């Protein structure tokens, strides 16, 4: 099966052709903001990290920057820095160049202040926007796609309609040789034994059990049982009673394929097929991690309704019930509530969702893209968490 997409110099396949203004620390957030106000074709996000970070926490944050700067959905990137960040910005720029991006590195320190940083960034962004038409969509195999799966604001329908329908999409993609990511470790709690049974090796099975244990222990270090945050108040209002129930519904997103690998937050899978990424349950930190790990598209099921998107990847929003779909039509792309209403089987809804995914991969805009949603958040594992 083929789609129309952009083939980058490093061989990776993009489904969008973005010019990204990437602020590597909060010192340059507002400069990024001023640049996209002058060049509205470009995309950016607000970053509250990147300074006074160390160790594994810094490494993880840098993985996110590299994942975004080299992402196949990106044509060109303006890397914006303060100039005193504790890491090597020219090396980040070099890796983006090696991935075939148009790259400009601008730091406040080097150009002599905020105003000049804005000017330089605007010029580079305008140049990239003018040049990006050079990249044209061409036929590529669907197997080049990495799908991020996500559920948020879950309700009692999530495990019956939206998530199993997404599971069908995941299975169809995996069957063509593509990759699907299951994440949000918090919402695997109570279902980890079922996932471990589906692992391709004892090592992968052990890894699944390990990441679940680790997130529970981290919560315990705060003196809190994770059941204090999960299910969230809205989940309970939506009819979910326990974290185990939420988890059993959650893992339906991943379909039935064997689990080939477990990767760290924002790490690129080395295997094709179904993989697990260790992320928190937080929608946006999860989304950011999967996209940094190379997902070109995300399908996000929601019971209560969520408007969120990603600056560089299309996010298809799936309502698990017709009420939420009708109420939040401006934000939601697909209604899986048809399964609850008895109008469609899970398989039928899944195949319809698969078709929508193909259209979006080929360029159709999602609601989140139309509204300009560009949420971003890095999962921190050090101070400030």
């Amino acid at each position, binding site marked *: 099966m083929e789609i129309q997409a952009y083939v980058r110099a490093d061989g990776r396949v993009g489904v969008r052709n973005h010019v990204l203004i990437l602020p590597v620390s909060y010192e340059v957030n507002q400069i990024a903001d001023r640049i996209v106000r002058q060049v509205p074709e470009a995309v950016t996000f607000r970053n509250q990290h990147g300074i006074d970070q160390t160790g594994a926490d810094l490494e993880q944050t840098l993985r996110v920057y590299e994942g975004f700067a080299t992402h196949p959905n990106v044509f060109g990137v303006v890397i914006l820095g303060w100039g005193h960040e504790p890491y090597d910005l020219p090396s980040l720029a070099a890796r983006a160049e090696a991935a075939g991006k148009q790259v400009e590195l601008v730091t406040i320190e080097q150009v002599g202040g905020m105003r000049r940083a804005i000017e330089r960034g605007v010029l580079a962004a305008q140049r990239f926007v003018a040049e990006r038409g050079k990249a044209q969509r061409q036929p590529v195999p669907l197997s080049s796609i990495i799908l991020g799966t996500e559920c948020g*604001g879950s309700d009692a329908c999530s495990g019956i309609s939206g998530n199993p329908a997404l599971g069908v999409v995941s299975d169809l993609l995996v069957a063509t040789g593509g990759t699907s990511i299951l994440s949000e470790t918090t919402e695997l709690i109570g279902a980890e034994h079922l996932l471990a049974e589906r692992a391709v090796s004892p090592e992968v099975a052990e890894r699944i059990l390990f990441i679940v244990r680790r997130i529970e222990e981290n919560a315990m270090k705060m003196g809190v049982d994770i059941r204090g945050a999960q299910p969230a108040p809205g989940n309970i209002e939506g009819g979910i009673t326990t974290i185990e129930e939420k988890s059993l519904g959650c893992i339906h997103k991943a379909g039935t394929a064997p689990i080939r690998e477990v990767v760290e937050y924002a790490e690129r899978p080395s295997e094709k097929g179904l993989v697990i990424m260790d992320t928190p349950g937080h929608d946006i930190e999860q989304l950011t991690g999967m996209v940094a790990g190379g997902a070109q598209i995300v399908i996000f099921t929601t019971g209560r309704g*969520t408007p969120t998107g990603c600056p560089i990847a299309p996010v298809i929003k799936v309502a698990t019930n017709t009420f939420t779909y009708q109420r939040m039509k401006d934000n939601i792309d697909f209604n899986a509530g048809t399964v609850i209403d008895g109008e469609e089987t899970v398989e039928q809804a899944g195949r319809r969702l698969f078709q929508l995914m193909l259209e979006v991969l080929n360029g159709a805009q999602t609601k989140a893209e139309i509204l300009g949603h560009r949420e971003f958040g890095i999962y921190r594992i050090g101070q400030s968490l």
Partner: protein
Amino acid sequence: MNTLAAYRRADGQVGVRNHLFTLPAVVCANQVAIDVARRLPRLKYIEHQHGCAQIGADLLQTRRVFARLALHPNVYASMFVSLGCEAVVAKKLVADTQKNAHKPLELVVIQDAGGTLAAEQQVEAWLQQRIQEADALVREPVAWSDITVGVMGDADLAGRGAVMTSILQALSDLGARLVVPARHADALRRVADDAPHSAWGDGSGARAWVMEEGSNALETATGLTAAGAHLIVHLADRPHGFGTPLAPVVRWSINEQVYNRFYDDFDGQLVDELDVPRLMEQLSRVISGQETAAEQMGMDDFALYRIGPTV
């Protein structure tokens, strides 16, 4: 120096700015604030990645800081925007905040409104009303004793600690309340030896107090704002690209070479103690309405000091 002009609020608070503030209770509500602020440039807002999947002390600190920002003296009225999954929490936060306030406060829930665009309409309609009320207020004479100044410096001020003490002494002599991050506790205690310690972003009944600092300068500036600083003096040995939406940041360079190269990113240069009266004069003008460099550039930013992991 004696002619400070600011806004007196119904509850006795004094504000050096008269902001309308929109505060997303959760990351999913950011876009509503961003879009409305594009249409109403007068609006101040924060954008952040929190409010979901937080637990324990970390969650409590976040709620405390959100409530304190909504009630900040420089704010005329505050709008919370929540998604709805967390609405139980947001409704309680707004109700609890309301108990301590005489400020106009409102909550819009995106899921109840029916999505981003419908929520934006509600937020905008409410704010349009509040803009008219806010613009009817005029500045009145206030005293330094009505003003809380946050003072922070880069690193350890590269051996310029004496200047920090001079500034704190000058502000104390004028009668201002003072809050400083923990790294400047010694300097503050030379001026106020009984200054107590507060958590990050928390206030105090004392005239001068030391606040736990964040993990970076923006978190510290955010914390000083939430603590109640009307404005923040930032002594910097490097250029910076951030301010805060609610409290003006007055940034003076303590490094001559840096100042010469980046002078238009700063509000002034501090060479030695002789410059302190000049800084005090500028602060009185900023209190009375003069914009700082960060305000002129619209460098409003926010960072939350997290003390627990996302789950």
